[in-house]
């Protein structure tokens, strides 16, 4: 009985009092940001949106070892679902459509992906991203607004109260908190383990009872859903959804988030999203040089910390754990 309780404790996401304190402080910080630093509300909201995409991409790339350069495509599907449908069927319903659409499309992309690996899969998925971008740009009668895109009015979606930027920030915070919680749960569950198992030893995973095709397509679908919810939250935040936002460059940025933050962990995706969003926000002021500076910083981070920010964090934690020995 004593043992059983210990295992159940082990399974809690937050175990120690320090853990709870850190958790409470984090939530408090995010709740207070729009009040204390209103200027940061927008970049922080953007960071939260991106962190969903990075978490999703990490589940695919980091956990199952399938690469994607097409996540801007899923992001676009989510964004367009909200931009087009939310005024008609309400925001929650449009969000649901985004989830279902991304799950289905993610699963479908996952099927041919079973036969591809490494650079081949990277190119194939980038083709998918491009196709989605073209689809939204060139739908007949500009149903999705054509090249100009669609305007998303927050007041129309949420009424006057949530139309204020600060209020919408809290909608994002709520959705992202739930999705992050579910990602942490997924990662340490038997499904998260199976994701890593197919990456590390496919044969042994199979003989242990893991259906490779099922688990890999599931990873694709879940990954797409995270990116799609990110896109769905992104549309009202930016206020406009247009094809040019969802280029290959965006997919590359998503990938750089998880590489910078740390491949194969939920926390790594969040850290990377934060780092990349902060960089872009700061470097935007550098005007024409921003791209160059961004590239340089990324390069330096990767040279100093090949395991990403989360890897550095783990090393620091280990260091203090073993201190003063």
């Amino acid at each position: 009985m004593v043992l059983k309780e210990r295992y159940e404790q082990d399974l809690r996401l937050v175990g120690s009092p320090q853990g709870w304190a850190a958790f409470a402080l984090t939530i408090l910080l995010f709740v207070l940001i729009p009040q204390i630093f209103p200027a940061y509300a927008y970049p922080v909201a953007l960071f939260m949106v991106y962190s969903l995409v990075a978490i999703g991409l990490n589940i695919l790339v980091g956990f199952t070892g399938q690469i994607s350069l097409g996540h801007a495509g899923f992001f676009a599907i989510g964004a367009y679902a909200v931009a087009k449908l939310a005024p008609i069927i309400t925001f929650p319903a449009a969000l649901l459509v985004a989830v279902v659409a991304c799950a289905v499309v993610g699963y479908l992309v996952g099927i041919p992906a079973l036969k591809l690996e490494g650079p081949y899969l990277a190119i194939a998925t980038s083709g998918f991203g491009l196709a989605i971008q073209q689809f939204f740009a060139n739908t007949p009668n500009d149903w999705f607004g054509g090249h100009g895109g669609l305007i998303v009015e927050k007041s129309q979606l949420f009424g006057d109260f949530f139309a204020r930027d600060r209020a919408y920030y809290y909608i994002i915070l709520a959705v992202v908190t739930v999705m992050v919680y579910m990602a942490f749960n997924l990662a340490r569950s038997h499904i998260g383990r199976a994701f890593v198992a197919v990456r590390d030893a496919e044969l042994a995973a199979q003989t242990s009872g893991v259906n490779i095709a099922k688990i890999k397509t599931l990873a694709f679908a879940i990954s797409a859903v995270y990116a799609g919810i990110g896109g769905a939250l992104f549309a009202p935040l930016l206020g406009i959804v247009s094809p040019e936002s969802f280029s290959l460059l965006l997919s590359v940025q998503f990938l750089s988030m998880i590489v910078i933050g740390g491949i194969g962990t939920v926390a790594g995706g969040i850290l990377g999203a934060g780092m990349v969003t902060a960089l872009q926000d700061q470097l935007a002021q550098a005007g024409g040089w921003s791209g160059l500076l961004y590239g340089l910083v990324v390069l330096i981070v990767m040279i100093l910390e090949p395991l990403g920010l989360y890897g550095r964090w783990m090393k620091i934690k280990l260091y203090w754990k073993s201190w003063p020995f």
Partner: protein
Amino acid sequence: MTVLLEAKNVTLRFGGVTAVNDVSFTVGANETVALIGPNGAGKSSLFNCITALYKPQVGNISFMGQELTKTSPDSIASLGISRTFQNIELFGGLTVLENLLLGRHQHLKVNLFHAMLGTPTWVKSEVEQIKRAEAMIELLELQPYRDRRVRGLPYGVQKIVEIGRALVSEPKLLLMDEPVAGLTTDEKDELVQRLGELKNELGLSILLVEHDIRVVSSLAERIVVLEYGRKIADGTPEQIRNDPVVIAAYLGEEAQTLEGQKK
């Protein structure tokens, strides 16, 4: 003795190479059978046929009435067969405990939503699996490595973890492809003793590929000998030791190595 596994006329070809050629043999309940033969004789290929990773062109393999040549590799575990690999196949990025938990994967019936929401149903099932894995860790004395990532653990420990992962799924038949290869003599003795105990404790049938003749004779009740994909002998260790055909096959090999050494 009731027959657990029965292979009948199994033939497996890779292009021009016939890796397994018309092989028939059985493994009985609670029996330990060793599969021996020179390099390239087709031992691992036969394992892969039994675990449905390869589909033989000819023949049948049945396990408790189930036809294995028509199933998929991921359903083998739920039928009650588990295995280890000649070249260790562990989940390097996972801890020892997590590797063992994958051995329990087939017993997990909890769906995605319970897992993502961390519901009591999920916690209950997870605790159940952890208990089993923990018992296996204790049995194999892997406690010091419980939360260590498998990648980077000593080779001998990895070999044990792989056996643990196979055992924790509670198989009726355990297939081991060269379980002691690469271990020191001490490690070998220890593992052989442990396997002997486990076998009796768990009422397990074992099919074992092994080159180390000491290991084979101390574990196996029966030996099947393959050469160039064909079965050339099948009998008790006593019978096999005195079988002229087997002696010829192995002497031939030794004569070749001797010649090689001369040069």
